[in-house]
Structures are given as structure tokens and as C-alpha cells.
């Protein structure tokens, strides 16, 4: 992926981020995404599994069997998913650094100073 270009929809990015620490089942993903977005992204089962299907189809996440919980399907980042997430994070990091340099964030947070 070009580091100057974001390739993931916001929800997909949030799901990958939610899976960056450990494997999770559906509701755990929903809760983590909601927490990470300060409540701005509230997924229902439909939207969640549409995104999961797309991420799984692209090979960015893997299904994991959980011996203690056979009713729920767990998901974890694949190697490709980790790479894409890292690239996305780098893209956002660069974007924020650029914004700081241009003092474009000052109206959002007056304490942010140019680099």
C-alpha cells in the first residue's frame, strides 16, 4: 500500500485495531470498537459481519477456534492484516505530523504546536 493513501474504510480499520492486541469474538469487537471511537462507532451484528466478511475475504483476519467457547467464532489479525494496519497507522501518523507542521490542528486543540 502506498503510505500516502488510506485504503481501509473507517469501520474496517477500527476492527483491525480492535484485534491488534488479541483475538476477540463478535461482541468483544463491537465493544472495543465503540470504546476506541469514544462511542462514535456503534456496530450492530449486520454491519459487523459485513466488515468481517470483507476483511476475511482479503485475508486480513483469520478465524480462530476456541476450545472453551465453541458457540462463538473468534477472529485475529493475519500477518497481512498486521501489515495493513501498520501501514494505515503510519499513514495517519504522517497525516497528523503534517497537520501539526501546518498548524492545521490548532483550531481543534490550541495546545498543539507546530513541529
Amino acid at each position, binding site marked *: 500500500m502506498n503510505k500516502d493513501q488510506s485504503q481501509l474504510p473507517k469501520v474496517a480499520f477500527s476492527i483491525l485495531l480492535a484485534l491488534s492486541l488479541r483475538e476477540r469474538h*463478535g461482541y468483544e469487537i463491537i465493544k472495543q470498537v465503540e470504546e476506541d471511537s469514544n462511542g462514535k462507532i456503534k456496530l*450492530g451484528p*449486520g454491519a459487523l*459481519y*459485513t466488515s*468481517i466478511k470483507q476483511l476475511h475475504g482479503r485475508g486480513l483476519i483469520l478465524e480462530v477456534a476456541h476450545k472453551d467457547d465453541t458457540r462463538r467464532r473468534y477472529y485475529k489479525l493475519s500477518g497481512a492484516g498486521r501489515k495493513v494496519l501498520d501501514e494505515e497507522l503510519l499513514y495517519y501518523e504522517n497525516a497528523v505530523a503534517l497537520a501539526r507542521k501546518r498548524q492545521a490542528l490548532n483550531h481543534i486543540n490550541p495546545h498543539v504546536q507546530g513541529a
Partner: protein
Amino acid sequence: MSKAPKPYRIYRALLYLYPKAHRKAYGEQMVQTLDDILADQHDISEKIMVWIRVVSELPLNVIEENINNLGEMSMGKLSKISSKQLTIGAGVVILVTAGVVLGMHLRKPDYTPTSLAKVEHAATLPKCLQTADNPNIPISAEDRAFIENNAAGSIIDVPAGTNVTAYFKTYDGTTATGSSVYSGKFGSYNFSAKKTADNSTNSYVGGWKITRLEACR
């Protein structure tokens, strides 16, 4: 195995709006996730908000999945579906599904107590009555004592009429089976209770012995 409660059956039915492949791959997990979400809500207003979220996301989600599934459809045919038609279709699906799901969710439970049992109906079915395969998980001594002294003790025979905090489906005169629902630390439980004192007044504390206790997840 008992049938799932109506809201879940309706949700399962709504899943038929999705392409078969999607339903087959993710349908069970969607129901399980909905069950997990609802189990984590503590009152009826929170549960209703969940249903509203689920129902409101459904039309566009269904449309998106079906469009994705129409890979063989040419863009020329696809372009004949105007955005206005899509909006009208989505609106109709939202109204129908919202009405059906919320209407069913607010209905009283459809089980019938025996003539010897008297049950005060909850606004919704206790969660434990909603599934047939609640796993056994450890229960603290504190919770068990609370259930024995309060939940089962609140089961009443005719003609008692005090508040009931336990719910049961079957009662053969000595053994009651059902659920008791408490918010906060006590959570939700399925139980069987055996009558140990032969009285028929309002006071049953200590008159019942828990023979099976199973926490809901």
C-alpha cells in the same frame, strides 16, 4: 429443545433477507452476537435501543450484501435501480421490521403456568427462558444463598399473591423449574426448586430447596 423466543425467531427470519451464502457463513454468529449484546443490557430501554440499532442497520446492510452478491449482474442492469427506489425500499423494510420486532418484543410471554403455579409476568421473558443451552458456570455461595432464600422462596402457590421475583414454566406440585432474574451482581439464573415445607401461605422463605442452579451468561 425448546423454541427460541419470538424476537430471536424474527431476527432469524430477517436473516433470510441476506444472500444464502452470507447467512450460512455468518447467520449463527449474528444471532449469537445479538444475544451477547442483549445479555449485557440491564433494562428494557437499553434492550429496545439495541433492537432499534439492529433494525435500522438492517435494510442498507441487506441491500449492500445483496448487491455484492449480484456479481454477475451487469452495471447496466444495476444502474436501472435508482437511488429513489433504493431509499423507498429501505424505508419499507425499516418500518416493517421495526414494527414486527418491537411489537413482538413487548408482548407478554407466551408460556402458560400450571394451575398450581402463579407467575407474575415480566415485561420480557427472563433471559434464561430464551435459550435452551445455557452453559453451567460456577455460582458463588453468596448468589446461591440469595436464590435459595429469596428467589425460590418467592414462588407462590394458589392462593398466595405476593410479588414474584422468580419465573417458572413447570410446576408439578413439588418441583418448580424456571428462571429468576436479578440485576447487578446476582445476574440471571435458571433453577429447579423442590418444595420442602407443606404450606400454602405467603411466606415461603426456607420452604424451598434449590436442586439445580444454572447461571446465564
